[in-house]
């Protein structure tokens, strides 16, 4: 039961070595290859994900900056347009006012001239009429004088 049998010891060691090579070839080798491959794949995809996230963050920041800039520019443009339109409005208004005033003044002037002209012509007319009337009167008084003188002569 407890006798030492060197052949069995040697056979056992050889058996173990054979088993070791077989297991390394058919079990530990392939499975470790799969495990390492999977670990590497996971590491790679993690690194890639990190890189993509950084890229996305970078793009996001860039777009944000662009958006800010665009907003600022739009604000500037609107302010500029508002200023321009206000200026134009004021100018147009001033023009219109001055033109209206000019027209008013012109028409007033014309009215004044018309009235003056009318007055002058009326005054002329009246003068003419007065002269005509005076002529008539004078003519009729000459006749009267003549008549009177005739009558007075007759009497004498």
């Amino acid at each position, binding site marked *: *039961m*407890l006798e*030492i*049998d*060197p*052949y*069995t*010891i*040697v*056979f*056992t*060691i050889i*058996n*173990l*070595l*054979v*088993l*070791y090579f*077989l*297991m*390394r070839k*058919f*079990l*530990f*080798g*392939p*499975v*470790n*290859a*799969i*495990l390492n*491959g*999977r670990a590497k*794949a996971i590491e790679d995809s993690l690194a890639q994900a990190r890189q993509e996230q950084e890229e996305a963050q970078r793009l996001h920041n860039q777009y944000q900056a662009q958006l800010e800039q665009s907003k600022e520019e739009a604000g500037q443009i609107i302010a500029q347009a508002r200023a321009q339109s206000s200026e134009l409005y004021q100018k147009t208004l001033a023009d219109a006012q001055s033109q209206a005033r000019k027209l008013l003044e012109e028409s007033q002037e014309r009215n004044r001239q018309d009235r003056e002209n009318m007055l002058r012509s009326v005054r002329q007319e009246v003068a003419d009429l007065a002269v005509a009337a005076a002529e008539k009167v004078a003519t009729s008084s000459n006749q009267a004088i003549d008549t009177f003188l005739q009558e007075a002569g007759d009497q004498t």
Partner: protein
Amino acid sequence: MEQIKEELTSQLQNPTAFTIPVFGGIPVSQSVVVSWILIAALALAAFLMTRHLRQEKPGRVQLLLEWFVELINGMCQSNIGRHGGAFAPWLGSVALYIALANLCGIFGLVPPTKNLNVTLGLALSSMALIYTAAFRFKGVKGGLRQFVEPVPVLLPINLMEIAIRPLSLCMRLFGNVLASFVVMELIKLLVPIVLPAILSIYFDLFDGLIQTVVFVFLTALFTGEALEEA
């Protein structure tokens, strides 16, 4: 009583299966033949199971294999250190062999670990692994220094350990398997049905696996000790 004694003694013999007719005849014991059968079975199973490994979506068989390999890898790394991965295939093979050798009684084979010479072979190869590991990873100087660690006064004890460690590994495994075998045989003689099946769960399955773990774990622990500060 005499009958039981005779029966047990005959069961504990390690008969020679056949003799290779070279060099004046090399006797091949039954344990060695059973070991060949176990190794062939393991190799065939490993070959068949690792034919279709996939990196993504592993099947159940592959998950089992991955669990086992990672268990052995993790055990080696936590006990041996950063060189642990190099020892994993050897320790894994030894674990598979001892476990199957302890459990093969279930399939009607005589457990090879019941033979003292088999466990002695296992222990001697473990010792070779432990004491060459330091030379392999730390050079000749580092390899020799393992005998004067932690203090040079312990040199005699360290030298004695070279003999004590394999003896204890060998005897522990052999003794456990032998004892459970004897106990089971006695129980079978006393109560032939039901009870042997129940107790066999402890004496054959549990003890067999525990001794496997103990043997591999101690080998890893000793190797780690030899490689300390490597």
